[in-house]
């Protein structure tokens, strides 16, 4: 991987957040959204009416611009999302706001731009004091509107200097910018600021334009650069990519394009083998906003929602109400399909709100251990999840379980939380499915005993492999020993599936292995009931499942299980894939 150095024409890789999937390669356009400069200027009393007239004209022009953007947005991205611009239009019709502005121009004898900036700025400041993400984004919309009016007052025409197709890099792209640009041939978006929930990120996804946001230094690093790559799957912006990097990404792009084409036909089809074995194909999600995209991908449900994502950027645990709102939004969006919410998995490599030090965090205080030690926090979360389950499409899953008693204790807390809700007459799913992650060797060995306590098991391969093989895969001295096709891993997976089935519970997998196309045939052959994968690989995995026979997959699994090394298993699986699925590329 090239290093991040600020040398002209040298490849620079910036890591941000993938906001809209896809890969874009092309010329860079640095978009400097000129914020109009507002100069305070005194005017004479006989100038005021002309000043106000200029403002009224500017508001009218702004309204026409926004209506155009709105019409365009509705046609291109659907009515519901166009609502963002409707709010701005409503503000333009706010008689009280503008009569206050007119009044101030008359009494303070200042130019219109200055009063507009000051008066609207007041509301903006109030919005900025909120810690609600929604309000902060509204403040951004109001800022956008304010600048539009000012720009029009200054009779500056908004025009886009963009010509031809390009990757747009900016400090912060507003929703209006995103839609306007999409008229041109925009290849992708990259911005310094912006989280995954920002409107432009949502719009990019709806418009199917790859985007990476939160890159911090994107605008400074692309100064003077001619070409860039956006990897919207992983949140990379690569400035001045080398020929080798471009080639690598062209291949990835081609591969994704082919699958996109297949996608249309696959979307509504079940994940079912040629001989009729149905697989439950779900996705892992990090953010609520991903769900709409996931539904487009034809997912059956959410196999894993990592609730610890609610803690990002917070220094305290979110309240029960805050959690409930989030969980319910997820459950509602995926309804009638199921969403499995995993209770906080903090510790290990995931940071706790309050910083703490452990010499060996992976063997330390994490997952269910923390929850059981913090019963109040745990009960709050369980109550929030239960409340979100009233439509009976929510499952609950405990991470980092190592013993049966941990599950029993967690279930006791769950029963107490249920009791609370019953007393308060709050509806919830009395029979909410409960499952455990199998991600420790002890949980794997105890699969049958754990299965007796729950409704499902979900194998978390990332941690299971690390613990099973005693390898920290972030440690470059030993990372090569992290092998997902290690015979011990295969045997453990087989053992968990077989013992789960003995207790008639379904067994799923939500680790990276579930999303590796090379492992699909093997895992189906081992009898895995559910795959929970990252959204971008879902169509590929579905395609593989739909092209195989369960009978054959079982033979492949049996043969792989008899092998003595990870390399043998891997070459065997590559051989199988080449023979059965020559069109599927196995590079990552």
């Amino acid at each position, binding site marked *: 991987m090239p290093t991040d150095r600020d040398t002209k024409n040298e490849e620079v890789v910036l890591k941000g957040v993938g906001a809209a999937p896809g890969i874009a390669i092309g010329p860079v356009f640095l978009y400097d959204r000129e914020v109009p400069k507002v100069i305070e200027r005194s005017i004479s009393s006989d100038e005021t009416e002309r000043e106000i007239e200029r403002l009224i004209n500017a508001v009218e022009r702004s309204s026409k611009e926004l209506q155009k953007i709105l019409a365009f947005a509705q046609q291109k991205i659907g009515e519901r999302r166009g609502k963002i611009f409707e709010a701005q239009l*409503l*503000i333009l019709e706010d008689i*009280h706001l503008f009569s206050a502005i007119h009044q101030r121009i008359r009494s303070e004898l200042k130019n219109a731009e200055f009063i507009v900036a000051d008066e609207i700025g007041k*509301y903006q400041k109030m919005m900025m004091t909120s810690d*609600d993400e929604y*309000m902060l984004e*509204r403040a951004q919309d109001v800022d956008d509107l304010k600048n539009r009016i000012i720009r029009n007052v200054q009779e500056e025409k908004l025009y886009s200097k963009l010509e031809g197709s390009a990757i747009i890099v900016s400090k912060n792209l507003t929703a209006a910018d995103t839609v306007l640009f999409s008229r041109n041939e925009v290849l992708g978006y990259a911005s310094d600021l912006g989280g995954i929930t920002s409107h432009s990120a949502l719009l990019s996804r709806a418009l199917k334009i790859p985007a990476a946001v939160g890159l911090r230094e994107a605008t400074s690093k692309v100064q003077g650069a001619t070409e860039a790559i956006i990897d919207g799957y992983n949140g990379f912006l690569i400035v001045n990519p080398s020929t080798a990097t471009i080639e690598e990404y062209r291949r990835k792009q081609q591969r994704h394009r082919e699958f996109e084409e297949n996608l249309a036909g696959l979307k509504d089809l079940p994940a079912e083998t040629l001989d009729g074995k149905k697989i439950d194909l779900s996705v892992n999600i990090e953010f609520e906003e991903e769900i709409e995209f996931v539904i487009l991908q034809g997912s059956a449900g959410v196999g894993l929602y990592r609730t610890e994502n609610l803690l990002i950027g917070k220094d305290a645990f979110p309240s029960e109400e805050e959690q409930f*709102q989030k969980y319910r939004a997820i459950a509602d969006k995926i309804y009638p399909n199921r969403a499995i919410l995993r209770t906080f998995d903090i510790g290990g490599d995931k940071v706790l709100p309050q910083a703490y030090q452990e010499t060996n965090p992976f063997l330390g205080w994490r997952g269910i251990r923390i929850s059981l030690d913090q019963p109040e926090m745990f009960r709050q979360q369980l109550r929030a999840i239960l409340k979100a389950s009233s439509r009976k499409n929510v499952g609950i899953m405990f991470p980092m379980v190592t013993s049966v008693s941990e599950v029993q204790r967690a279930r006791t807390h769950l029963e107490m939380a249920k009791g609370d809700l019953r007393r308060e007459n709050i509806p919830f799913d009395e029979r909410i499915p409960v499952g455990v992650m199998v991600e420790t060797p002890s949980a794997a060995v105890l699969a049958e005993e754990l299965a007796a306590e729950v409704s499902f098991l979900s194998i978390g391969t990332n941690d299971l492999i690390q613990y099973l093989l005693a390898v920290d895969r972030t440690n470059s001295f030993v990372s090569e020993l992290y092998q997902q096709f290690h015979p011990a891993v295969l045997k453990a997976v087989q053992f968990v599936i077989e013992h789960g089935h003995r207790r008639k519970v379904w067994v799923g997998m939500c680790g990276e292995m579930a999303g590796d196309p090379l492992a699909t045939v093997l895992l189906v052959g081992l009898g895995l009931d559910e795959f929970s994968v990252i959204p971008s690989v879902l169509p590929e995995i579905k395609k593989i499942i739909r092209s195989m026979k369960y009978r054959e997959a079982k033979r492949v699994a049996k043969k792989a299980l008899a092998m003595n090394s990870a390399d043998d298993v891997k070459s065997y699986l590559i051989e199988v894939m080449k023979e059965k699925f020559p069109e599927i590329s196995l590079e990552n």
Partner: protein
Amino acid sequence: MVEKEVTIKNRAGLHTRPAATLVKTAAKFKSDFHIDKDGIEINGKSIIGVMTLAAEQGAKLHLRFSGEDEQQACEAITSLIESGFGEA
């Protein structure tokens, strides 16, 4: 003058659409209409003001109407808020 305490019931709170409905309803009446939330007072006929309140579910608002149709205005606005703006 008529005054009234209300609690926001709908899940989304006074976000864009409910705020627009509130302002549109208020505009049907001649009376002045002010909303006070946690000491911040705004004009209830101003959409940007109502949006700024960021009134979430459970927020308590103090409504104040004054004018010839203050009674009717108060009833209309109160029932709108209490019905949760027709949201589910």
